């Protein structure tokens, strides 16, 4: 049952990602795809909080993880970084698009994790 809920939650996460990415992207003046960065950092914070122990008994961790798995995306981040000019010669925008979400995303997960543990 939780598995089914996790899958459904993941598709709701996908729609949430589509909406939030679009909203950020429309307002963004940056050359970087900040919409993808925003969902990923936000989702990493969420999973950190949930895994650290914030999740209540009413909503199992697998369902929260399912939602955030659909909400965040790794493949879009990689393709967008490649398209900014990552291989074989690195452009500064591609390097920034790799490192900023990486550092802030892992940092957000750690922050959430240690905050709630």
């Amino acid at each position, binding site marked *: 049952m939780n598995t089914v809920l996790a899958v*459904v939650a993941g598709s709701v996460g996908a729609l949430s990602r*589509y909406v939030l990415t679009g909203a950020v992207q429309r307002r963004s003046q940056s050359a970087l795809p900040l919409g993808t960065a925003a969902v990923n950092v936000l989702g990493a914070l969420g999973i950190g909080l949930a895994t650290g122990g914030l999740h209540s008994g009413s909503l199992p961790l697998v369902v929260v993880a399912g939602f955030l798995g659909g909400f965040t995306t790794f493949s879009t981040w990689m393709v967008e970084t490649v398209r900014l000019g990552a291989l074989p010669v690195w452009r500064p925008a591609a390097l920034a698009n790799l490192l900023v979400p*990486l550092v802030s995303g892992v940092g957000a997960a750690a922050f959430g994790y240690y905050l709630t543990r």
Partner: protein
Amino acid sequence: MPAEDQQRRRPTLERASIPLAVIGGGLVGSAARTAAGALAATPAGAFPTTTLAVNLAGSLLLGWYLARRERAAGSRWGLRFWAIGGLGSFTTFSAFGVEVVQLVEAGRSAVGIGYVLASTAGGLIMAAAGEQIGRTTR
């Protein structure tokens, strides 16, 4: 990537179908990710082979799909279903982030760094390879 999809002034019927395509693709992608996690579960603090495999495979497929779609002028519906909903949901950044934290927490920081390197370098290579395949093959 979604820039093309963010144009205004769409017909009403097309606007109404957008959430359905993303949700439908999200169901497929999430089900595949959940199945992979169930078939090959990795305990917290162990090297996250399953997430790595999912993220690398998804990066290859997304690079391939988008490059091929640009050549063949695929539908917007396909973009939303397969790319944004499907492969976007199949791969995950949140699991990646918390797994790095858990590896460090387990005192395996070197493994954590290796996981970050394998995911990012591998993901970029897979995305670029996918684009190359999508551009050059039928």
